[in-house]
């Protein structure tokens, strides 16, 4: 059982890093980016390209791709997010859905249907583990969890302890009033988009190192990110980590119970939290259960 819990928590680290950009964009811009998973896959392809074509060290390639995703975030914000959010939330959902379709098919056109992975470029890291008594802990999974905590912790510190972070939070709460205290809301949104896309770059690298991917792998990644963000509360940085871990734990425990239990358990927990939110307006599941008992 300890092994199941440990593996679940470690899997949660991946989901947390995957959901970080999605939750961050939603909390700052009120925008649900349906192309989130596709951009993660694109980032993974970029890393493969850099390693393949230029023979770069994979971790240097990941750093470059993270920066490149930041630039892509700026472009997408100015060309897609900004114009579409002016037309209301539905238009931005449709616009990002269209973007994901274009991206998926463009990647299929360019990279073909073959499955790819970053595992061949990172030596034994994709399968090596530390042995702790009877327990085997995957090195990559631990690194991913540590990276998730570092990214989320860094985001938290940035948002709460820097002027730019405060400006982004102010813009998220009320862009019009932010302008009245001298903040340029457009600049704040652009920087937020760049940060969100940089975390997508990291998520794509994590995806490529821990699994195989194809041009159409974005949709399941989007669903996992969405579930982790909803479970954790999309307005909370640390909630994303908790959401990722809860999702990872439920999937791992579900897989122990039955072969199909991996997805079923994750979906059940997701729907349970969603219903709790619908009834309570926030995460009040424990309160709801206690109320029913009384």
């Amino acid at each position, binding site marked *: 059982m300890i092994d199941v819990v440990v593996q679940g928590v470690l899997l949660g680290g991946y989901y947390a890093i995957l959901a970080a950009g999605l939750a961050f964009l939603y909390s700052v811009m009120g925008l649900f980016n349906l192309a989130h998973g596709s951009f993660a896959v694109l980032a993974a392809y970029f890393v493969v390209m850099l390693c393949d074509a230029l023979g770069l060290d994979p971790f240097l390639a990941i750093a470059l791709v993270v920066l490149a995703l930041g630039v892509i975030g700026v472009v997408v914000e100015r060309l897609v997010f900004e114009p579409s959010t002016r037309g209301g939330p539905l238009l931005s959902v449709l616009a990002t859905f269209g973007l994901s379709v274009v991206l998926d098919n463009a990647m299929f056109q360019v990279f073909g249907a073959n499955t790819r992975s970053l595992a061949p470029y990172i030596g034994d890291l994709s399968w090596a583990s530390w042995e702790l008594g009877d327990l085997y802990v995957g090195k990559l999974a631990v690194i991913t969890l540590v990276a998730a905590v570092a990214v989320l912790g860094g985001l938290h510190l940035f948002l709460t302890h820097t002027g730019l972070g*405060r400006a982004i939070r102010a813009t998220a709460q009320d862009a*019009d009033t932010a*302008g009245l205290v*001298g*903040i340029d809301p457009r600049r704040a949104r652009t920087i937020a988009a760049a940060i969100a896309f940089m975390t997508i770059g990291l998520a794509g690298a994590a995806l490529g190192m821990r699994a195989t991917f194809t041009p159409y792998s974005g949709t399941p990644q989007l669903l996992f990110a969405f579930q982790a963000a909803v479970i954790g509360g999309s307005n909370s940085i640390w909630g994303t980590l908790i959401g990722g871990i809860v999702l990872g734990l439920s999937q791992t425990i579900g897989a122990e119970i039955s072969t199909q239990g991996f997805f079923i358990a994750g979906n059940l927990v997701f729907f349970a939290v969603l219903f709790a939110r619908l009834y309570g307006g926030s995460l009040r599941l424990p309160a709801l259960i206690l109320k029913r008992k009384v």
Partner: protein
Amino acid sequence: MSQLVVENLTARHGLLTAVKDVSLRLDKGEILAIVGANGAGKSTLLRAIAGSHGAYDGHVMLNGAPLDHLKSHQRVRAGLALVPEGRRLFATMSVQENLALGAQVGRAGAWTPARVFEVFDNLVKRRHSRALNLSGGEQQATAIGRALVTNPDVILLDEVSLGLSPAVVDRVYSIMPALRETHTSVVIVEQDLGRAMAVADRVICMLEGRIVLEGRSADLTREDIIGAYFGLSGQQAQKEPVG
């Protein structure tokens, strides 16, 4: 030279023209009160001047420089700050964080968060409280402080006494001597005629989007203003031409 000049400003809410061809001037260190019934266009006028109303016709100049092409955040950097109606604080941020946002503008001047805490000493114990947990008076003091720490040349105060008890309003208005001391020019939109006349050097009365009365507080009687307020003394407008 006037510090703030508004010329022939017309602003709309969709098909409704809320402000019609309004012109006014404000000298350095002057306090101007704008009074008028609900829907007279006072708040829309302030929002247009501050650049948060969107497009308008006419011109706004600060210290001789045109502001028409500037967005609201650029106008703050130019020296114009608005305390909006309803305070509109960043609810989940603390008092200190709200003030820090204003201070980030980086304009030199006498106003710092520390100075705001000196003037509104009731905020000192609440500096780490989230804005949503503050009383109405504390919220208004924070909103005014947040605008002041941008060190504006002109501050626009929109209905700062709305929903507050008289004692709390007194506390909010205790900021006026400090504003005079720093030669900050002030435009106040105020429903309380007595208070407007007491603090302002000049009073403007608006009716249905137009200025119908303008004069020095000392020269106007309460009856003059009430007459203009209800559209009963249009001839006053001719007696006191704008500008």
